[in-house]
């Protein structure tokens, strides 16, 4: 069973992918890779992407929020470039995930830097928790 939270996550992921109005094949592949990592089959992901809307919900724990936002940052780097619109969208999600307004810019920059340096998600979460 795929939770609403996870569905929302994939919704956000491909929204990010679409922000630059050019849905790159690399981005699509990345999307399938994320799905695979979370045990979602290609067909199931297609189902989520192609089917009518559901209520979007944000993750509850801090770890999940960071994990999802980091996925978004990786997704932004999928086509090896970061557009201004993509960064704005990432910031929008940081805001939605209820991080402090004054930190939004820095969080987005930090996550994008980590994604560019291909840091592991666990590494980031551990740093924040320590």
């Amino acid at each position, binding site marked *: 069973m795929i939770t609403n939270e996870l569905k929302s996550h994939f*919704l956000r992921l*491909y*929204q990010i*992918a*679409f922000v630059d109005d050019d*849905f790159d*094949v690399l981005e*699509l592949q990345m999307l399938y890779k994320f799905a695979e990592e979370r045990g979602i089959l290609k067909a199931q992901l*297609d189902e989520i*992407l*192609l089917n*009518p*809307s559901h209520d*979007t919900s944000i993750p509850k724990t*801090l770890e999940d*929020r*960071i994990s999802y936002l980091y996925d978004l940052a990786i997704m932004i780097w999928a086509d090896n470039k970061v557009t201004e619109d993509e960064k704005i969208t990432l910031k929008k999600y940081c805001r939605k995930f*209820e*991080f*402090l*307004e004054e*930190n939004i810019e*820095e*969080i987005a920059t*930090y996550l994008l830097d980590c994604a560019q340096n291909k840091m592991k998600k666990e590494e980031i979460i551990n*740093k*924040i*928790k*320590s």
Partner: protein
Amino acid sequence: MTSIKKLFTLKDKSSTEEKSDTYDAREQIRMTYYQSGYGASTKASGDEMTFFVCLKNLYSSFENLCRKQLNEQKILKQPYIELQEKQRTELKKRDTALTIFQEETKEIDVHIESLKFDMVNVKAKPGDYGIITDKKPKAQFYIGLSLLIPITIYLFVFYISASYSAFFKDFDNNSVSAAIFDSNALGKAISDGLLEAIFVGTIPFVFMGLGYLIHMFQKEKTKISYVKLGALLLLTFLFDVILAYLIEKKIFDFERLIGESFSPAIALKSINFWGIIFAGFVVYLIWGLVFDFVMKEHENVDKIRAFIRNKRQEIRNALDKKDKNLTKISNLKKEIAAIKGTIAELQSKIDGFIFPVKEYLHYHYQYEEGWYQSINAELAIPSKEKSELKQRCKEVSVKHLQQLNLSEDMDYQHLVFTTK
């Protein structure tokens, strides 16, 4: 630099103050409208013409106030903004679906092209597709067939004639010369009786059957099948030997002198005996080899045909899938156009101005109430005249609302003035 931990601090959830502030402000405004109505009515002695102008001013100032209250407008527009965001999400989803289907359609096109290429190329290079065959299987098949047919006819003639001679023929002076080959064998057998005709007529099929079995056994490359093959060849050879022996014996019996008796040694020395064996068995062997060759070439031609048939079916399937995708794509495009329309419509509402009808009516009635209260309390005129004055004011109020197209019965709370 802010520590990472601090950086990822979540907000506290306490933003309800704003709402209560708004509520207080509204209550304040409501009271102001009542007092303003009361004051204006006192000054104008409840005059209905003045009331009409006052109502117009009230409306204009309320509208102006609404336009200036950006925060308020933001709250009113929030549902439209949320709806628009939802629509944008829907649009993105459809865009994604469109990309997926378009990508898939492209892949199908490439696949169809490669299938078409395979269909043409398999004839030139069957080896590339795992089909081991000669280069021109079709030509070789027809050459083989053109040889096989006359040899088959020959075998028919030979075995009908030889079996008739061996089993049924009575030799006389004229027939000794035609001992092996009798041109009238079938006719004679028919005139001798049905069973005889069937016997000589079907004997060639026995040999054909043996030839077919040789072909089938050759297909299996096992030791057992080679043994069977050897046994079959031996059997056929023995059958031919028996035929030759019987004919040779009949000739011998017809020509023998007293005291002579027929023996295998005599048969082995006879040229007729060997003639029958060679004309029968060797030709039979040649027939078997040609038959085997023709069958193999036919299979090769068939393999290529089956391959092409298979590819054609694959193309049909791919085209079906492509058709379905194209229908989906066209539906998605329609949906995208519709969603874009909705988004644009919502955008014009967001860019426009929202007039809170219910709220205005509420203030309007407050003002009206203030006006009537003043007539009641402040005017020193007979109560009948007061009632008439209030009645006239009521008509003015109704007229004013009618002009603005506003009423209590409206089933929506806000009136939207779009930018278009």
